[in-house]
């Protein structure tokens, strides 16, 4: 009895892969259901749409685990025949071209990935009653396909299962690893370094797993990772055609793979170990000094030894083919660290010319620079968040708070001068006190971001008066600028403050305060008095604490839960010691003011 098998080889391979590895898609579906459908069905109907939205954007904990492991395991299983000499010999003895063998197994893997995604997507679409899970299916499948394709590439260059797993994880995350190394290095050594938004976004999207999380730029992510999938599969195919089957069983198939792995791993390991050692030994002043060098050498050696044993599975690790790329990697790490330390590109010293700046934003208004202190050092922060004010269109988010922009020549010059004092301040032997972030939008369209720590002497009371006099002088120049007084005028506050809420008066930071309801007329008078004092008092006089008024606005439960909104429910207005108008009004209206 004869059988027709001419066009059914692919079907046979796909069918048999499913027969052998059905547990992978089955477990994937189970995982999606356990982390998705079941909690949604068991949860309350009120929060159901929010839960579904979180699932559809892969922002719950469970979905990303499946997004990583299902394609990884699928890729490892369908190409597991390449990781064992017996199976490799058998499969390549069959009447199947390499193209058919490659294509059939890729198809198997993609179907194994698609099955749980599609089934889960259909179930959740019915549950949600809208198309959010259709989008989820597309994004999740594309991202999983990219992880799978890179795992297939790893199969072509690996000779055993352990190395296949390592290479699959490595190449899926190598871009993120290198980016993090450079970010860490820059953060440690470059004064004022602040990772640009674009770099952080790129970091989060530099691998398919983290790129699958979130709602934004889904079309772009799909396009990019579809291209990554196609490119990885094409490269894998090209490598497979050259892959010598007799090398199966060796940890690495091609000598260039060995060199590449050593280069990247030793480079990254030495950098991270060097930074770690330097941080422990040097504290807040990390330089390319003996502490860093010792750490780098130890890190390089550790990665080299572990990597060599993993690859060669032998104690004879000090071979030329291992030592050469490791030595190059360490030399490269020294060169890069030295260059960053020497600030060869002038990053640390750069302060934009005030004339080149279109607008500038900073969170200094929430920092120690504008905090009002009492004699014992307890302070009340300035009302810097743009959310308190009406009609503020030009804002930037810094650390989850919005800050208004400054565009006048006077305030820009004050801020650039402030930046210069922060660069020039003394650090050695000083204590960290607070931090300031500055964002410049230049007239040429570029954005410059900087982040500085503010230091005080170790024996200080950590008050504004303990700051470097030059820093205080620069802060004062900004506080006293016309634009600052306009932007932060109390007349710009949103109507719900003062007029519709309740007010609490505190005469010391630990007191319970007196709460009182205030009529709109009285609120207007109080606000007017406070505004007079704000416009009149200079920086030095304004930074001395006397008490504060806490104003609550009318809220709804939804507003309380929204991120950032909760902080805006209460506005705390410090009363300087020299605020005659404010203190006068309070006394006249029966409040015991010290």
């Amino acid at each position, binding site marked *: 009895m004869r059988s027709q098998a001419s066009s059914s080889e692919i079907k046979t391979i796909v069918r048999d892969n499913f027969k052998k590895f059905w547990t992978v898609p089955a477990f994937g579906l189970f995982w999606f259901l356990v982390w998705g459908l079941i909690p949604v069905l068991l949860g309350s109907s009120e929060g159901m749409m929010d839960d579904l939205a979180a699932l559809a954007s892969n922002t719950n904990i469970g979905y990303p685990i499946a997004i990583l492991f299902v394609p990884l395991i699928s890729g490892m299983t369908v190409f597991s025949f390449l990781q064992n000499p*017996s199976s490799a010999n058998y499969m390549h*003895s069959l*009447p199947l071209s390499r193209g058919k063998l490659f294509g059939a197994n890729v198809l198997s893997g993609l179907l194994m990935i698609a099955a749980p995604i599609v089934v889960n997507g259909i179930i959740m679409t019915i549950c949600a009653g809208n198309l959010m899970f259709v989008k989820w299916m597309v994004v999740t499948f594309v991202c999983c396909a990219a992880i799978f394709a890179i795992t297939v590439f790893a199969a072509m260059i690996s000779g055993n299962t352990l190395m296949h797993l390592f290479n699959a994880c490595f190449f899926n995350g190598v871009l993120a690893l290198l980016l993090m190394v450079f970010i860490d290095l820059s953060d440690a050594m470059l004064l004022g370094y602040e990772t640009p938004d674009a770099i952080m976004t790129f970091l989060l999207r530099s691998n398919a797993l983290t790129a699958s999380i979130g709602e934004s730029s889904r079309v772009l992510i799909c396009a990019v990772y579809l291209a990554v999938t196609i490119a990885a599969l094409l490269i894998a195919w090209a490598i497979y055609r050259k892959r010598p089957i007799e090398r199966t069983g060796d940890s690495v198939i091609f000598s260039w793979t060995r060199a590449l792995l050593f280069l990247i791993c030793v480079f990254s390991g030495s950098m991270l170990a060097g930074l770690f050692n330097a941080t422990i030994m040097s504290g807040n002043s990390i330089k390319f000094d003996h502490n860093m060098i010792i750490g780098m050498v130890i890190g390089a050696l550790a990665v080299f030894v572990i990597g060599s044993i993993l690859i060669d599975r032998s104690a004879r690790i000090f071979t030329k083919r291992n030592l050469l790329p490791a030595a190059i990697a360490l030399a490269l790490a020294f060169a890069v660290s030295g260059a960053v330390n020497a600030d060869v590109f002038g990053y640390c010293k750069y302060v934009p010319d005030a004339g080149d700046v279109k607008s500038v934003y900073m969170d200094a208004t929430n920092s120690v620079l504008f905090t009002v202190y009492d004699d014992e050092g307890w302070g009340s922060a300035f009302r810097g968040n743009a959310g308190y004010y009406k009609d503020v269109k030009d804002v930037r988010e810094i650390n989850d708070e919005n800050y208004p922009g400054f565009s006048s020549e006077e305030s820009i010059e004050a801020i650039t001068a402030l930046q210069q004092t922060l660069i020039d301040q003394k650090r050695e032997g000083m204590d960290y006190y607070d931090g300031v972030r500055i964002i410049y939008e230049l007239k040429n369209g570029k954005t410059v971001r900087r982040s500085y720590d503010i230091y005080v002497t170790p024996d200080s009371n950590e008050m504004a008066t303990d700051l470097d006099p030059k820093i205080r002088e620069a802060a004062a120049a900004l506080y006293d600028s016309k634009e600052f007084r306009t932007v932060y005028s109390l007349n710009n506050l949103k109507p719900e403050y003062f007029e519709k809420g309740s007010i609490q008066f505190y005469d010391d930071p630990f007191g319970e305060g007196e709460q009182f309801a205030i009529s709109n007329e009285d609120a207007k008078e109080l606000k007017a008095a406070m505004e007079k004092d704000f416009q009149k008092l200079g920086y030095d006089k304004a930074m001395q604490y006397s008490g504060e008024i806490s104003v609550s606005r009318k809220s709804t439960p939804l507003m309380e839960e929204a991120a950032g909104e909760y902080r805006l429910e209460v506005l705390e207005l410090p009363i300087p010691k020299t605020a005659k108008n404010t203190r006068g009004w309070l006394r006249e209206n029966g409040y015991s003011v010290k």
Partner: protein
Amino acid sequence: MIRVQNADKSYEKGAKALDGLCINVERGSIYGLVGTNGAGKTTVIKSIMGILKLDAGEITVGGESVYDNELVKQKLGYVSDDPFAFRGYTLNEMGAYNAGIFEYWNEERFQTMISDYNLNGKAKLSSFSKGMRKQAAFILAMSVMPEYLILDEPIDGLDPLVRRKTWKYIIDDVAEREMTVLVSSHNLREMEGYCDHIGIISEGRMVIERDLEDLKSDVHKVQVAFRDEADDTFAKAFESMKVMHHEKRGSVHIAIVRESAEKIQQTLQGYETPVLDLLPLTLEEIFVYELGGDSHEITGII
């Protein structure tokens, strides 16, 4: 036919497995490939199966290049020295897999052979002994109705009854379908009984490739004793013949002579020889003498 032309293959720097190897396996013949360990037998077999790619040279089967050629590989049946099966698969499941891949899969033959070999098609292959796995691999290879059967040490480790049965299947297919067989083995005695062509390889090169009968008829072991022997009697008697090996045990000379039986007898007619025996060499002896001595002996044979 199977033709290997000037095959070169290296695994690592300086370790050459095949060095200009040439093999010619005629259609319908049973070709025995012999060689010492590390001679390159498995390498050339894997290259013929399209598993390995040669560094240089060419391998054709039926006139077509075999590497990555699906149509040619449909005609090849293969039993590896290390039979493989998918984890957890039974023999029947491996058969079903092969049925989906091989165009000429013969299910009837498959089941008949399973029964004949007394194996359990429903049992997992992992539960089979090493010998049973080899039998299973042989059954799978024969059930694809190959035109060319490639066997890499298939018989080693099988009991005599099973070996006989296996050879019977092979010979029957050679006789009925003109199947061509290439078999490598260390069991030279057995190969001698079934092969009609022999190729002896050493260090990746072909040393001898000959019809087995021709090979055996060209070389004889001569046991001779001379009456009234002088010191140079043997040398004089054999001076016109090619002597590959000579030793004396008591008064009897044992010589391996590359010469026809008639010539030997004719030459020794003039001597009084109370002992004169001409014995054909076994394949094992030919193998030993071809590969165990220095290069002069090998050159002498060729």
